[in-house]
């Protein structure tokens, strides 16, 4: 059984980027909502990510940055057990969600995934479903049948994804009638409707134009009061704009991704402790 979901404490705006002199890198109070301890992911014995450890705190946006092949997406997908469907994949180390090991034999992966949602690189609304059906799809998958609850959750999620006003009059239209940016917001709404504790976003703007990208970024910033976000991006400006904390990964000698540095976004981008981080954030490679 999974432990009951703890209430999310109300957050104060505080841990924003500071000035260059002080460079705040505060450890937030309280237990982390998610904790990675020596996480290693391998495919058919070949390590893709090695020994990654960091904590994710409630109400914060954590960005995973690094060049292609550094294992960002691989690591992200380990956090809601998406690798379970890949037969050759193995995940070692510990991932704690509210203190419970998500890879423990007693943890049901489908229940876990309803607590740790995911948004993908390309908008992938269900093509056979309407906008409304897409928004409530996750709830229906999880056995919710009550119309009132479905309606309430759909509206709340679509409002949160800043899509409600443009689709409220055509909820029964096919999801494919939306633009790319709207489809991605629908996918975010679909994930939010299940009310996950953590939302994993895998380069959610990589298939979108700059305007749609900007709107998704603004949305991500607003959502952090509702859900803890871990976002993969290879766009450093995006990481700088949206995230509170950053994990910088780099491909090691044996092609396995390694965590080079983890810290507050402000510190990582202005005064990183590792020279490789400095090179990367200054655009010298990657």
């Amino acid at each position: 059984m999974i432990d009951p979901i703890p209430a999310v404490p109300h957050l104060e705006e505080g841990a924003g980027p500071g000035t260059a002199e002080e460079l705040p890198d505060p450890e937030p109070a309280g237990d982390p909502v998610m904790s990675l301890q020596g996480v290693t992911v391998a495919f058919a014995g070949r390590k893709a990510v090695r020994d990654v450890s960091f904590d994710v705190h409630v109400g914060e946006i954590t960005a995973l940055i690094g060049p292609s092949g550094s294992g960002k997406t691989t690591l992200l997908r380990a956090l809601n057990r998406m690798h379970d469907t890949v037969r050759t994949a193995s995940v070692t180390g510990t991932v704690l969600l509210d203190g419970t090991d998500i890879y423990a034999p007693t943890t049901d992966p489908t229940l876990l995934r309803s607590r740790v949602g995911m948004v993908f690189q390309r908008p992938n609304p269900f093509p056979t479903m309407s906008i409304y059906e897409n928004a409530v799809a996750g709830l229906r998958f999880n056995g919710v049948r009550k119309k009132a609850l479905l309606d309430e959750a759909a509206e709340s999620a679509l409002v949160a994804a800043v899509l409600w006003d443009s689709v409220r009059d055509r909820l029964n239209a096919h999801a494919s009638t939306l633009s790319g940016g709207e489809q991605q917001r629908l996918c975010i709404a679909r994930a939010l409707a299940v009310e996950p504790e953590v939302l994993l976003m895998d380069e959610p703007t990589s298939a979108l134009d700059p305007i749609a990208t900007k709107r998704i970024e603004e949305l991500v910033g607003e959502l952090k009061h509702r859900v803890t976000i871990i976002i993969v991006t290879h766009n450093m400006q995006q990481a700088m704009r949206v995230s509170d904390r950053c994990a910088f990964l780099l491909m090691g000698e044996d092609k396995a991704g390694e965590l080079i540095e983890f810290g507050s976004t402000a510190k990582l981008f202005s005064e990183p402790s590792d020279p490789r981080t400095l090179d990367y954030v200054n655009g010298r490679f990657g």
Partner: protein
Amino acid sequence: MTTLAFDPSADPNLVRRRKIQNVAAASLGRRKVYSRIAIGICWVSLALAIVPLVAVIAYVVAKGLPAWNIDFFTQSTTPEGIPGGGVWNAIVGTVEIGVIATAVTVPIGLLCGLFLAESDGRIAESVRFTADVMTGMPSITIGIFGYIAIVRNTGGYSALAGAFAIGFIMLPVIMRAGETAIRGVPHQLSEAALALGARRATIARRVVVPAAMPGIITGVLLAVARGLGETAPLLLTIFGNQYLKWNPTKPIEALPLAIYNNSSQPYADLIQIAWGAALLLMVVVLVLSIGSRVLATVLQRERR
């Protein structure tokens, strides 16, 4: 006159360029002829392939259409020499066999197809191989199997035995078509459902199979068309019946059998009936084949 700073005839790249361009220009006429000939051969091959097809259709229409009248569609076959008569008994039999075979094989075939699409294990591999072997199996052997398995064990020829044999023709086609359609559904959709906390069966039922529906419907209709046209399995399982029979446990007539039996009779009116039946069967198969494509296109367009 300007003087060039360097001698172009000395630059090996420019020399080569001029040579290549000269060769290209000189060979242009020859290459055009080759191209024409190659395209001509393609057209001839196309004509060779299409002429017999069109000829068969035209001939069957020309020979069969005169047989079509009210009696042809409403009366059972009369013995030779007695005027009138039609293939109502065969139509009923073909529809009965088609409906029973479809009703049984579609659910089984599609569930097998789903299994094949979702699994890459050894069982799936051998099932897939078996299905492919079954697709290529001579249909008379399936008739013999139907005869031994059903006719001998139930004590007689029957529409059910025919449906069993036809089902065996249809099953592998439906399985493989279903598998192909389901495999064609983008992986991103099942991942999206997985990430929302859906279980495997839920993903299949609510996301993957609905998305695969156009392909599935096409495959089923093609399998039905294929099954209805088979003669050999029916020869050994339904026996044929000149009289109208609704009871599926009794020997029954079917269109392919009506063609086969009547065309080999030395009586002009029975041969006429056979031509009419051939035209009818051809029209049914064509409607199913063309209909499946039209339907698939419409369903696909609706999705956009």
